[in-house]
């Protein structure tokens, strides 16, 4: 399916958010995810089914003021 991942269009063979993170080799307790503007909790990623052109944000900690 085609998704918009962190602002970039990408084709990924995944139907759940957890699978998508796995395919793209995202891992770590420090990641936060949102789909179409809504937070998806860590524990809900495996059950979260993705749809065509879903907008997925994957954030991690960085320096800030």
């Amino acid at each position, binding site marked *: 399916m085609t998704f918009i*991942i*962190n*602002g970039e269009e990408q084709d990924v063979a995944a139907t759940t958010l957890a699978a998508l993170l796995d395919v*793209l*080799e*995202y891992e*770590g307790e*420090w*990641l*936060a*995810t*949102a789909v179409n*503007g*809504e*937070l998806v*909790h*860590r524990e809900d990623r495996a059950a979260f089914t993705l749809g065509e052109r879903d907008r997925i*944000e*994957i*954030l*991690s*900690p*960085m*320096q*800030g*003021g």
Partner: protein
Amino acid sequence: MLSLYGTDVSSRLLLGTARYPSPAVLAEAVRTSQTEIVTVSLRREMAGGKAGGAFFEMIRGFGVQVLPNTAGCHSVSEAVLTAKMAREVFATDWIKLEVIGHHDTLQPDVFALVEAARILASEGFRVFPYTTDDLIVAERLLDAGCAVLMPWCAPIGSAMGPVNMAALRSMRANFPDVPLIVDAGIGRPSHAAAVMELGFDAVLLNTAVASALDPAAMAGAFASAIEAGRDACLAGILQPRDMAVPSTPIIGKAVFQ
């Protein structure tokens, strides 16, 4: 002790973690500042990227309270979602709420700020709003559920120092029981001392420390200035007057003619 949402802190210096020349210098600055609260942010992670993880582990190693921010957000929905994602990552209800309204001055959009604060407070967040020195906005933020206010004293990173001391003084007088933290615009330790002398509760610094020639030394200098300003405020500061007052007593002075 300063109490922020029920958490007592000894240090009245909050330190940002951005713009240091290296992680090692940041770590040293955190140590010399003696801060107990550091601000952090969230950004898009690259696929397979480990940058966020390394920073996350370093921050955890500091053993201090983390205050995530919503820097870069320009709308209520962006700020609220970023706050929720920050809570997921950092496991804290604390959020430094920024909703930027102007690209050049980074002035907060205070209307969106109040709305975002209301939503976040209702969802259990402990909101630290980055605001202006406007009294009415401050009142609205308190009504929205904020129990701490963080007014700027000048634009972020400008190093101008307090450009409107009268407004800051008025803010202190109007909200005597609300923790007030000056966030943004401080350039040098004397600026920090000046706002602490006014009775502000703490100062949040980043660029002034991170961009110094020696950030660790500057962090220590700020810590001393903030403590001095606080002590001076408590000691009772002499108010200025127009005419001279002799410091040496006149009584008993010899008369030679």
